């Protein structure tokens, strides 16, 4: 019943189920539910608005802007296997060019079968220069060469695609540090941005992924990929609150234009619907 002292139990439970189903962490859901029970929120609409406010506040505001970013700049894309890095790099090349930048792609995945080929095909489609190495070659060398190419070819935005790696594999995480150092050696201040690609369909493990990668190569942003599916990426609130990493973009499909600046308000509304 809608009396004083909070929204009714059905409303609270419905919200709880909706949030859990969207992969919001159980800890955060409990916190929200406790809040709702204490709050003098009136009725279903009041409860929803109260939850929306807390959730939106958990997402840091992104500040990245292509126009304002240094010239040249380097952006490193990292993440676990299959999270959407290569496709995201292609989309970012498109977005950078549309924003007046001159991108160059670095295919620093020298491990996976057809890893560099996949990015090279994208580069061709986008008419964007790309620097690649041979499979089995040294990823740090590719990165170094790509940074040199930025200068030689008068480009101003280096987008580095890296191999997928499990955050639990120490030697692979060390390799990422090595990539960062190689970049910094050839381009002062690089990488200016290090973004993690996070698959929207992941559960709570996405938080562990962000945490571990953040410790090794401090993350300045995240791209939530595959948000055009049915999954709601509720883990983003924990990542925002715990690590302060802003979500810069959302991947919304497999094509080069399927990337949109992340809209925090729309994201929260969609989650609560």
């Amino acid at each position: 019943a809608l009396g004083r002292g909070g929204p009714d139990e059905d409303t609270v439970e419905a919200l709880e189920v909706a949030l859990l189903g969207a992969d919001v962490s159980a800890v955060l859901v409990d916190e929200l539910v406790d809040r709702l029970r204490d709050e003098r929120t009136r009725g279903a609409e009041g409860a929803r608005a109260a939850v929306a406010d807390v959730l939106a506040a958990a997402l840091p505001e992104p500040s990245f802007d292509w126009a304002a970013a240094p010239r040249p700049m380097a952006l490193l894309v990292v993440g676990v296997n299959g999270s959407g890095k290569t496709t995201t790099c292609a989309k970012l090349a498109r977005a950078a060019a549309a924003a007046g930048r001159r991108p160059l792609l670095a295919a620093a995945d020298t491990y996976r079968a057809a890893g560099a080929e996949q990015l090279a095909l994208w580069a061709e489609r986008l008419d964007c220069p790309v620097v690649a190495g041979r499979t089995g070659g040294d990823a740090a060398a590719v990165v170094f060469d790509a940074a040199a190419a930025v200068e030689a070819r008068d480009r101003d935005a280096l987008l580095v695609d890296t191999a997928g790696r499990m955050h639990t594999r120490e030697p692979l995480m060390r390799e990422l540090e090595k990539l960062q150092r190689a970049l910094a050696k050839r381009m002062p201040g690089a990488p200016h941005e290090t973004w993690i690609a996070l698959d929207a369909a992941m559960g709570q493990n996405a938080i562990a992924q962000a945490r571990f990668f953040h410790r090794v190569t401090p993350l300045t942003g995240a791209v939530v990929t595959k948000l055009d599916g049915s999954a709601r990426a509720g883990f983003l609130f924990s990542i925002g609150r715990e690590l302060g990493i802003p979500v810069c973009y959302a991947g919304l499909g497999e094509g080069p234009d399927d990337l949109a600046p992340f809209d925090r308000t729309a994201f929260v509304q969609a989650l609560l619907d």
Partner: protein
Amino acid sequence: RLSSALQGVFRNLRGYGRLTERNVQDALREVRRALLEADVNYEVARDFIARVREACLGEAVLSSVTPGQQIVKRIHDELVRLLGGSRRDFTLSPAPAGVLLLGLHGAGKTTTAAKLARTWSREGRRVLLAACDLRRPAAVEQLRALAARVGVDAIGPEPGDTVAGAGARALETARREGYGVVLYDSGGRFQVDPDLVAELHDLHRTVAPANTVLVLDAATGREAVAVARTFHESVGLTGLVLTKLDGDARGGAALSVHAATGCPILRVGTGEKPEDLEPFHPDRIAARILG
């Protein structure tokens, strides 16, 4: 950790002898919390708790000096029973036995196709890898490179092929050339994309494989139920492969998918290399889910 959380629930009851139903309810709430944190879907967790509730109200638990341990044991055993119950394997005869791999984008289908091909080729079977992903850039190259690496033949689409057409071509080749197994690697798709579900349905109907296998990332969240259920309704799943278990995801998706389809988990992926494919051990995943 679940066991310490349960210890916390029962700590204050020491010396009062028998537990009450209320104590067990509190303990089961902790279990539910552990399941949710392990990415088990809300309804699946709720139904699972309801199943084990009876077992947890038995004499053995209520009068035990270590009720927490008793409850964990019963939960663990029920999980193992559920996950390991239907111990089926791939159907690899009559030749050419079809194995269609499907799933969300990036789940590990192409890599798993090569892993399975390697396993069966080492058993002396003639395996054909069939590239049926016509969408992803360099998908066919990826499969061909992996095929070469594991020493297995691969066939790709011809210009103008539809996905079903590529599958038909592969099946025709498999029959004509006497292959024992044909593995169809399909492109990633969402279960909520009607065009892609229809495309999968067409491929499935065309090649009529003996095995229709969902490849699922072990870190998948609570959407795993909807994914599995929709694909199961559309093409009928005969099994699951859970990938990327070399990460630290708890793997609750395994329970969710089993609840939605009743399908056996046939293998698990434990790395990127062709040899990183292992048999499924229900007790290991049960322990992992319970944390």
